[in-house]
């Protein structure tokens, strides 16, 4: 008997022991759609405990979403009771399920919520981290930091395990007891990085936040790894490597996004607009990669708080400067030198960043053209000051200049062209309370262009002075609201003679003044951690103000009346631009998103040139004769990310309908023309396309392959007989490959290959003779195409330090632009003869019997560069 009792006791003990073992088992289930029956089977399979229930009481086919990560059986069952109306009892090694009785159906008391807020920054430099994430384990609550590293997360009262993470940084996991609103600033350590610009694994929680369709985050490491052009890895060339962005041609700062015109892209640096992002007619970019902290490209679903351009916004945030230690970065080559300094002014509280860059071309041309002065340079400055926990101030200054001048010939005459970009931002970040963050900015952008001859100068420019107050309201863990106000004043100088004798010869072009007031509002709502809805609108009022002179035109574009305006507003446009997006997280690694947006643009670049170079374009405001450009864009995107392999696949389709698109009458006169509006024609443009990309963003071998099919078609009643025609940048096929291979810790090989359909242009369909000149006849506009573009760039980067811990780090980069010396044609002409030395020239003597020939022009067949880069920190 005793033996029997012992056996029973042993049996009971074994049951209890085994049950305690099973209840200790941690369960992980992540299913977006699972039937109740399958879910119970999954729990049994992971815990080893079976369920007992009456099948007629339950709907076991019902599909539910169920997420638990590393939870005990009890926690898992508790979660289950919130999903289906059951109660459970554990009896022996079984879980007995019953229908929940009414007394248990009483709503549990709502948990109390509190806000945890603060800043996330880089521990070594103090730089705030943009887009870093905070994630509460087991709660499926997460948020990312804004442009200033600020976060605000809404959590239920209680203990939480929080994970702070950022790409390239070691995540920090911390426990916190939330029983009131709290502030916590977190400093993340960057991961040891011994590889040249290695791209480090992205924390899984960041994936869907960073890979949203329509928005592309361009990492500095991606830019720096690209083969350089003339010792510089430029922003524009980096952008052009991404699907949907099309370059004009070699050496051009112009680019086209999703079929939009070249003036439909806004580049902002710390909110200030850059009107001409080019140095040296476009060969170099104004944006210095060392100065940038974050680069975001928006191609669709452009946020309501930035905008007024139809096709894209490139939002660049600059480095604040190292708050903890002094650092020097630089690079030198035979054609370009740059250096930057950063460090603390008051350690941990205030810092500065200053960079300076200057070209060094003189040795290239001095022997051939000794009087030529060809140079560019820029100066960037950033200062920031943390007054206290709730108030921070930032100051950014960007100044870039170019000069091309004859410093004096035999007659002592001096002639030149120069242009200058200037942007300045004064920012105040204020935290009203843990839920309300404000960003108030006073900023200006200014672009001036001057052509001079001795004391005479022709001058044009555009500029703005703006005030913006941007607010982010973190409503709760599901909802975030953005709203704000902008006030802008713009001046446009389409070209006037400043000084000297020419002021009496050239026509007077009046300056334009415009104002813009903007109100915007947007709410993002997260439903069940699966759906994200975003809806908002941007309401703008554009006002032309005097003093001004404008003309009215008849139906044949002949001027009818000159209207002189005194002071005050004489024309207004009101527009409300709605934005809507819906995204759905299919699972933890893939997302699909649909967006619709309406956009208006009030500033227009007037140029009928097909040249890749920035020349004498002038900006003109919307006015009585120029209606704002308008766009409807629909976009559908899908992103799948495989974290283990670091592979991302994305596909995006878009359709754009644009109104009031500026076209030109044949041979339009756009320079120094007071009646310039009579030279313009207005039509529609539509564009559509599919962008595909596969990207491997980590490992020794990384890079991406992209392909875009797209069309951009114009239709203007007075152009091409009112028939639709392809835009210059209509290039149906565009293919790119970017590959990096880390040969060793100190050696990186990178290559970039791109190929796309040639641009559309008009070639003659016949000829006739007039005054003994051969005159071309054209048929359909843009009836022909330039040859397809192809280019291979390669680079080899060698880190010279054997010890990666050295304070002085230096490297050598050898780059080859257009390595295969492919002739990429920028234009074809039919008006030249061959000179005595076989170079094409225009025929002057109409009696000459020499045959006319077709000629083609190509740029930059092959350009090697060697750059030495260094970095020193104290």
């Amino acid at each position, binding site marked *: 008997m005793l033996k029997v009792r012992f056996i029973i006791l042993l049996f009971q003990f074994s049951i209890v022991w085994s049950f305690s073992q099973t209840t200790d088992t941690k369960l992980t289930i992540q299913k977006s759609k699972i039937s109740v029956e399958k879910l119970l089977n999954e729990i049994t399979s992971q815990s080893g405990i079976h369920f007992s229930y009456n099948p007629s009481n339950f709907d076991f086919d019902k599909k539910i979403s169920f997420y638990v990560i590393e939870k005990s059986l009890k926690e898992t069952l508790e979660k289950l009771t919130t999903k289906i109306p059951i109660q459970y009892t554990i009896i022996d090694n079984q879980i007995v399920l019953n229908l929940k009785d009414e007394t248990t159906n009483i709503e549990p008391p709502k948990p109390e919520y509190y806000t945890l807020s603060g800043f996330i920054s880089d521990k070594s430099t103090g730089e705030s981290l943009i887009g870093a994430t905070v994630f509460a384990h087991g709660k499926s609550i997460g948020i990312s930091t804004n442009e200033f590293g600020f976060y605000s997360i809404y959590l239920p009262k209680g203990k939480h395990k929080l994970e702070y993470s950022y790409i390239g940084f070691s995540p920090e996991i911390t426990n916190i007891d939330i029983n009131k609103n709290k502030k916590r600033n977190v400093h993340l350590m960057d991961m040891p990085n011994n590889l040249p610009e290695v791209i480090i694994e992205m924390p899984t929680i960041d994936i869907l936040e960073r890979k949203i369709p329509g928005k592309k985050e361009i990492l500095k490491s991606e830019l720096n790894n690209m083969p350089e052009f003339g010792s510089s890895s430029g922003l524009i060339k980096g952008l052009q490597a991404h699907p949907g962005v099309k370059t004009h041609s070699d050496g051009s700062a112009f680019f086209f996004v999703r079929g939009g015109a070249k003036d439909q892209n806004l580049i902002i640096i710390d909110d200030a607009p850059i009107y001409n992002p080019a140095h040296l007619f476009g060969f170099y970019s104004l944006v210095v990669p060392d100065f940038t902290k974050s680069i975001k490209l928006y191609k669709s679903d452009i946020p309501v708080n930035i905008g007024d351009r139809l096709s894209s916004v490139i939002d660049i945030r600059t480095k604040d400067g190292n708050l903890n230690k002094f650092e020097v970065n630089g690079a030198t080559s035979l054609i370009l030198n740059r250096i930057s300094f950063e460090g603390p002014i008051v350690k941990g509280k205030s810092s500065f960043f200053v960079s300076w860059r200057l070209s060094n071309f003189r040795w290239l041309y001095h022997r051939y*053209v000794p009087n030529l002065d060809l140079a560019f340079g820029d100066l960037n400055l950033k200062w920031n000051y943390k007054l206290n926990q709730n108030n921070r101030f930032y100051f950014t200054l960007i100044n870039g200049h170019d000069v091309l001048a004859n410093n004096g010939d035999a007659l002592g005459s001096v*002639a030149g062209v120069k242009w200058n970009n200037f942007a300045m931002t004064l920012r105040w970040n204020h935290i009203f309370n843990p839920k309300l963050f404000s960003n108030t900015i006073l900023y200006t952008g200014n672009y001036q262009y001057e052509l001079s001859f001795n004391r005479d100068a022709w001058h044009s420019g555009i500029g703005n002075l703006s005030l913006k107050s941007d607010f982010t309201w973190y409503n709760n863990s599901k909802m975030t609201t953005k709203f704000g106000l902008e006030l802008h004043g713009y001046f446009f100088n389409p070209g006037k003679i400043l000084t000297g004798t020419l002021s009496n010869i050239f026509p007077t072009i009046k300056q334009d003044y415009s104002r813009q007031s903007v109100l915007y509002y947007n709410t993002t709502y997260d439903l069940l951690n699966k759906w994200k809805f975003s809806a908002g609108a941007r309401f703008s009022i554009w006002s032309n103000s005097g003093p001004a002179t404008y003309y009215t035109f008849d139906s044949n574009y002949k001027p009818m009346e000159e209207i002189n305006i005194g002071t005050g507003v004489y024309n207004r446009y009101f527009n409300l631009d709605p934005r809507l997006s819906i995204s759905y997280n299919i699972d933890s690694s893939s997302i699909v998103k649909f967006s619709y947006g309406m956009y208006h643009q009030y500033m227009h670049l007037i140029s009928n040139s097909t040249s890749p170079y920035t020349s004498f374009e002038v900006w003109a405001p919307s006015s009585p004769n120029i209606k704002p450009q308008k766009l409807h864009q629909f976009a559908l995107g899908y992103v799948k990310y495989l974290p283990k392999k670091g592979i991302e696949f994305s596909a995006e389709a878009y359709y754009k309908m644009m109104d009031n698109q500026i076209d030109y009458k044949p041979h339009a006169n756009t320079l120094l023309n007071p009646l310039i509006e009579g030279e313009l024609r207005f039509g529609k443009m539509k564009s559509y396309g599919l962008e595909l990309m596969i990207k491997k963003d980590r490992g020794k071998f990384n890079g991406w392959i992209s392909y875009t099919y797209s069309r951009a078609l114009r239709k203007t009643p007075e152009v091409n007989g009112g028939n639709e025609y392809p835009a210059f940048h209509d290039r149906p096929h565009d293919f790119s490959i970017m590959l990096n291979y880390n040969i060793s810790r100190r050696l990186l090989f990178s290559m970039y290959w791109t190929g796309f359909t040639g641009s559309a*242009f008009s070639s003659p369909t016949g*000829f006739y003779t*007039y005054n003994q000149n051969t005159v071309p006849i054209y*048929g359909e506009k843009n009836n022909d195409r330039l040859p397809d573009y192809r280019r291979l760039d390669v680079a080899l980067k060698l880190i010279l330090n054997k010890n990666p811990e050295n304070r002085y780090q230096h490297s050598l980069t050898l780059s080859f632009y257009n390595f295969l010396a492919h002739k990429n044609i920028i234009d074809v002409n039919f008006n030249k003869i061959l*000179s005595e030395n076989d170079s094409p020239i225009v025929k002057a003597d109409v009696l000459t019997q020499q045959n006319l020939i077709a*000629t083609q022009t190509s740029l930059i067949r092959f350009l090697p560069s060697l750059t030495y880069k260094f970095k020193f920190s104290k």
Partner: protein
Amino acid sequence: MKNKIFNKFIFLLVSSIILFACEEKTDWKYSPMENHALVVEAIITDQYQNHEVLLSLSRDNINDLPLPATNADVKIKTDGEIYIFEEMLSEPGKYISKNPFSAKLNKVYNLEVNWNGNIYVSNSYMEQVIPFTEITFKSAEETESISLNFVAQQYSPHEQAMYEIDIDWSHIVNSDSAKAKLFYYTFNTIDVNEIFKPAIDNVKFPKGSIIIEKKYSLNPEMADYFRSMLMEIEWQGGIFDETPSSLPTNISNGGLGFFGVSAVLSDTLIAQ
């Protein structure tokens, strides 16, 4: 003044861009359409003479000779007067007025061409011409020859004109082919591709060459036609090209070319 500026910038820009750019001959296959439109080439002037109208056909290939449009009825009317043109037997497509006449200010001249059963009409009027500025010459590098240095301002807010320069040095080298014809223009507009136009052939000739200069006044429509023509034939292919396009015309019914009326000044000088 403006010429000097243009030259400076052409020099500067070409100097810098040439570091990268390369232009070469290509065998471009453009797609000709059926080109047999009537081309009218006619400028009547205030000079008392037999005026001429050239009629030809447009063509497919760039270096083909223009085919003449023959057997047309051509006449010009103004204020009840009608001037009949007759085709020259020796030069098909060239029509000469039966009687000499001179164009007058403040009159509208109507051209009417009946060719191949189709009627083509056009009208134009004359503007005054302002006296010449003096032509200057410069020495051609490393030769005894000279070339034209300055003919006219490219820009003037007050007038628009065309300059036809005939240079003849056949009497010096004893060759009938030692002749050249150059055209220069003054417009009241300024264009980017004009400032940065491509290199043009430098026509050299010996001292003692006979220069006959004719200055034609251009009314706004004529100036627009010739400015557009220069955009296609002389200013195209530089650094800042404009979008190419067919030239405007004042010939009706699908005709091409231009009918204009100009006041003309003429001068003859010996190149020194």
